[in-house]
């Protein structure tokens, strides 16, 4: 594979050539962008896209200074054990297992703690084909051969073996399930056997058998779905979902397989099929090696629908999901392509870029070596080696965002760099448009500016770093307004934000999380685990310790992980939800997820989308509570580990943000108020944008911040567009409020009509006191008196009226006002006002009399 570095002048001409070992002269040319010439610079909160001053040369494929949208963070979780016979991944418990002859070592992969010491269990010697812990972590199941599976109780050490007699069938594998009717499922060549585990009797009880021929199977605990392959080409698949709601059998379906030239029929292998869960929907990706395509299928309750295909550029493919973004690793090409399959488009959201290894001390190795002698030389060498192992043969991609280097015993977690992928996103859009430009001419220019809304949509869907996502959205929105992009485009961008906000309100993930009732419930296991998920503040309370800072990685990601699960639960249609782990499932049940909204979101397609755990409500409460206890206990440790590094306050706030959705208040204070300050020139454009915001808010039926109206009045009167201002008020586009009325009066100094509108609004709002005071100020003191009498306004000082009457130099009026107060205010005659003005009145009258 060659990566052609472009000069800055030709940065729009890109070439990315793959040379595949099997087909030496086949070049697949794809328009590919080298986004590392572009950098997102955040300066004064304004996003600017530009080239860094000097385009730095690429340091290999994963130069540590380079930008990449996907990275793995050094250090990895090290899980190498002397005498290890192999690594296993138990996705049900998210455990990495390493076997020696008589022991099994386990590492929790969530949270990601690099230097985590393993737990160990002793097991009997003998061959091990696969090994899985039960979901309550009490029993270890070990497949010893094609006909026997051994069970071992971790507490008592008791074991028993389940045998299968017939020679005709053999066990392909097994997994534990949280299905209400059974505990463990055996996949055999003759079909599925569902057993319940009888711990007292030390035996399994057969619950149900599903008969069908099976060549191989694929299962992920995340989706609770098992796919069984049968047929000559192994391309006929039958799916079962064994969720807490019961067992659902999916209709049989065929995978698409292109024929090779020799008319040989290729056989589908288990490693070519990937089950993934994205946005709570279950998909299956299938590699078609002949056609070099990655077909995708989506599972519904009663249908499997093919969704389209993605091109692949490598014979070996790895698939990961990070924050609901699909990552397709092109292993041979050593690049990764990102897709957001929420939208219907099959276009990648990024150009293929290499995976980056971050946090490696190699960049400053030159001086660090001399300064820190304590650094082990072996270690340094190993680190230098690391880069070479990227996408090596030993890499195994684990569900859903883990990579295991089986040779070195490293476990990496994949991260998404939101900002970097955004730059790419912009860029791919731009590239697409520039291609279109040549073929369609003008049309594309309009289309190309539609990028910002899509970018915002993309960010709003990201849940792993809600604070960052929110800040990005705010910055982008401000930027597009300040750059005076076309109104319709900004309008669409605002629509995205407003819709996203209403969605988050409907589904209940409010902006500030649900940081209540933590300490009170901390006695309960489930709740304490939830508290951790909710808000790191809670940890400060429960554990009396502070949050660690960003760089150390571990707890952070754990918190995020847990939080994201809950957030997902709330903000994506939970009907289709199946990624929740046990604890979050319980949360769902306890927090009374709005079932109304669940129903409404489903059923666009033939059937209801397959759902995961939601129907568990109350099914296995006990085991879950135990599980919850386990989790909360486990989570206590890392936080104590990190406790010596207190995080800054802002970070605590940061972690409070549960969703990137932007509330109307934030819209005002972080977008419009700031933009108004910075914007120069004719405010007409900003008014247009504000109107679009009103429209968007009105269509979603949310209230905008009252200051928005005040701002609009200011802007319109600043440009002396009083006629429009009148229309806005009359049509109630600017909803009446005291603030608006006062602003109208203020702005009305130059325009009588506008002042009148303000007065009218005060009256309509029954703000009698203010109305009367203003009438007096304007010199209409008699009207003011009449109004005050009619509406029983007693709060205005009589002296105000008297002063006004005196100022008009009309003795009759002054007398009338004086009389009014003497008549209607009982003890007015004894006040100094009365005597003062009576004297003044007499003085005024005396010259005439004389």
């Amino acid at each position, binding site marked *: 594979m060659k990566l052609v570095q472009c000069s800055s002048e030709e940065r729009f001409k890109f070439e990315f050539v793959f040379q595949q070992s099997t087909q030496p002269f086949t070049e697949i040319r794809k328009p590919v962008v080298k986004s590392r010439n572009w950098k997102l610079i955040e300066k004064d909160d304004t996003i600017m896209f530009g080239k860094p001053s000097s385009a730095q040369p690429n340091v290999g494929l994963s130069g540590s200074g380079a930008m990449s949208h996907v990275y793995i963070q050094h250090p990895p979780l090290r899980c190498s054990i002397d005498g290890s016979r192999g690594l296993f991944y138990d996705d049900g418990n998210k455990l990495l297992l390493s076997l020696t002859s008589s022991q099994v070592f386990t590492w929790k992969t969530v949270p990601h703690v690099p230097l985590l010491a393993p737990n160990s269990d002793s097991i009997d010697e003998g061959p091990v084909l696969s090994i899985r812990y039960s979901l309550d972590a009490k029993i270890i199941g070990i497949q010893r051969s094609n006909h026997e599976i051994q069970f071992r109780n971790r507490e008592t050490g008791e074991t028993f073996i389940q045998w299968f007699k017939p020679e005709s069938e053999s066990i392909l594998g097994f997994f534990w399930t949280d299905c209400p009717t059974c505990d463990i499922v055996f996949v055999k060549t003759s079909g599925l056997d569902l057993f319940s585990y009888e711990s007292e009797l030390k035996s399994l009880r057969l619950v149900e058998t599903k008969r069908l021929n099976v060549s191989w199977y694929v299962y992920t605990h995340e989706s609770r779905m098992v796919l069984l392959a049968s047929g000559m080409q192994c391309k006929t698949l039958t799916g079962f979902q064994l969720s807490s709601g019961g067992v659902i059998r999916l209709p049989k379906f065929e995978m698409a397989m292109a024929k090779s030239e020799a008319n040989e029929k290729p056989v589908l292998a288990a490693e070519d099929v990937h089950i993934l869960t994205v946005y709570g929907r279950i998909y299956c990706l299938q590699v078609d090696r002949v056609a070099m395509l990655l077909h995708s299928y989506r599972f519904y309750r009663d249908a499997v629908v093919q969704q389209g295909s993605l091109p692949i550029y490598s014979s070996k493919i790895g698939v990961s999901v990070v924050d609901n973004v699909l990552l397709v690793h092109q292993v041979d090409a050593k690049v990764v392509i990102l897709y957001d399959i929420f939208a219907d488009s099959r276009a990648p959201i990024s150009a293929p870029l290499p995976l980056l290894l971050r946090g490696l001390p190699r960049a400053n190795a030159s001086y660090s070596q001399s300064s820190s002698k304590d650094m082990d030389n072996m270690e340094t060498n190993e680190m230098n080696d690391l880069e070479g192992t990227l996408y090596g043969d030993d890499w195994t991609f684990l569900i859903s965002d883990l990579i295991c280097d089986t040779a070195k015993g490293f476990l990496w977690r994949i991260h998404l760099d939101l900002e970097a992928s955004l730059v790419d996103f912009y860029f791919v859009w731009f590239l697409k448009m520039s291609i279109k430009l040549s073929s369609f001419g003008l049309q594309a220019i*309009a289309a190309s500016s539609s990028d910002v809304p899509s970018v915002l949509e993309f960010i709003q869907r990201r849940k792993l770093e809600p604070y960052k996502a929110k800040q990005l959205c705010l910055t982008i929105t401000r930027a597009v307004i300040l750059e*005076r992009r*076309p*109104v*319709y485009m900004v*309008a669409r961008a605002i629509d995205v934000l407003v819709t996203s906000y209403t969605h988050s309100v409907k589904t209940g993930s409010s902006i500030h999380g649900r940081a209540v009732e933590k300490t009170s419930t901390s006695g309960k296991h489930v709740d304490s685990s939830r508290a951790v998920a909710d808000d790191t503040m809670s940890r400060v309370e429960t554990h009396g310790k502070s949050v660690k800072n960003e760089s150390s990685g571990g707890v952070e990601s754990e918190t995020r992980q847990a939080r994201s699960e809950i957030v997902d639960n709330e903000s994506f249609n939970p009907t289709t939800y199946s990624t929740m782990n046990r604890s979050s499932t319980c949360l769902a049940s306890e927090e009374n997820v709005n079932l109304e909204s669940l129903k409404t979101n489903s059923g666009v397609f033939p059937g209801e989308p397959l759902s995961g755990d939601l129907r568990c409500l109350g099914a296995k409460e006990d085991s879950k509570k135990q599980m919850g206890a386990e989790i909360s206990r486990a989570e206590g440790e890392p936080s104590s580990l990190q406790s010596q590094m207190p995080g800054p306050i802002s970070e605590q706030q940061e972690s409070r943000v549960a969703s990137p959705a932007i509330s109307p208040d934030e819209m005002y204070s972080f977008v419009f108020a700031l933009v108004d300050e910075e914007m120069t020139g*004719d405010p*007409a*454009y900003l*008014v*247009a944008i504000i*109107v*679009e915001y*009103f*429209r968007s808010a*009105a*269509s979603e039926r949310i209230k905008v911040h009252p200051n928005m109206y005040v701002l609009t009045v200011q802007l319109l009167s600043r440009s002396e*567009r009083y*006629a*429009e201002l009148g*229309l*806005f008020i009359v*049509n*109630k*586009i600017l*909803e009446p409020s005291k603030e608006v009325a006062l602003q109208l009066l203020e702005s009305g100094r130059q325009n009588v009509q506008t002042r009148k509108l303000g007065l009218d609004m005060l009256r309509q709002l029954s703000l009698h006191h203010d109305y009367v005071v203003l009438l007096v100020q304007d010199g209409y003191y008699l009207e003011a008196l009449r109004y005050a009498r009619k509406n029983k306004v007693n709060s205005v000082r009589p002296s105000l009226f008297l002063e006004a009457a005196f100022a008009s130099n009309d003795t009759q009026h002054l007398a009338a006002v004086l009389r009014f107060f003497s008549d209607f205010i009982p003890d007015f005659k004894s006040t100094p006002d009365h005597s003062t003005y009576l004297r003044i009145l007499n003085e005024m009258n005396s010259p005439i009399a004389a």
Partner: protein
Amino acid sequence: MGLSSVTTVSEGIQFCIFDLRRGQHEGEELDKILFFFPADLPFSTQLSVIGLSEGLITFTRIFSPEAACEVIEAERHSHVFYQAEPDIWMVMIVEKNKDAEAIWRIDALQRVLKEVHSLFLMFHGSVRALLEKEPGGGLTRNHLYSFIMDYLSDFLVGKKLHLPSFRDCLKESGTVQMLTVGREAAIEVQSLVKALESCAGNTACNSLVLFQDLLVSTTLSPDDTVKLFTYAVLRLTPRALSSGLSSWSYLHKGNTASHVTSGSILPNSGSGSEQFNVSSDTSPGRQDQRYHVPRPLQRDKWSKKKDGFLVTDIWGAEVGSLISATPTVWLQHTEERMYLCVYQQKNLTIILLIPVSFMVNGEQGISLVKQQVLENVSILSLLCCILVHIFC
């Protein structure tokens, strides 16, 4: 048969415009006449009418130097005065009939005078400015003649000129009728208006949106809104376009039968000037060729094209092209000349005003703006639906 010849017999109406600053010297009296209706009256009569008016104006000024004379009621005639611009007077002399209403009608007639002037101002600028541009007065006379004759043609019923009656002055003339809409619709309208006004890039545009004969939105100053609204109702709204009849709603609403097509009655501009220019000392023929006089009030000159834009050849064509020149109007508030761009969809009429000074490349720029407007057509249709819904 021209309007002038018919109307002398119909109702005793005389309508003149004169400039007190002109014709001060003996023998130059004719010079002060800028417009006279009916044009076929002998100059001596014209001069005596104007002389009388001038006398009345000067005389009343002695008693009221601040407020000029407005109406003189004689036994058989009413004299309605309106000082349109400093020293430029518009006078209408109407014969009284037996009705007692005759006196009360004055208000309506005054409004006619004001309206004529304000519309003239919008299209041609002030009379004084025209006179300064061409001191001979020929240009001004041509403009005034064709403009006012076109205006008066709306009052033609059969062969008679029916000026507004007393009842009409109680009605809606000179005001703007608004369509009341709810908040959401209002926001939609504003959103559309902003979208439209941004069509011309960063140029500060103005717009007026009408639904049928009702105003929905405006970004113009109140004065300009009234003028443009009046013109739109007269010539641009679907009703004005389709029936070809005068949309003087207070005059002829639903009264189509009494109408004759104006074409046969109105003289073309050439013959009109000829009749009129007899009064002028310059040769009428050459003068007419020298000035191209747009007649914005000429009827049946606006037509809707397939793309929804209204076009007219009133303003002539650009040199070397067949495309009609885009009309321009003069805004009083901003003191700017604006291109008038009219788009119509069903009952919705949108008037977009683009400053001439900002359009460097003239017609080309306009057609670009039009394209931009067309891209918003979907919103337009939506808005149309909303408004129909509100209206019905």
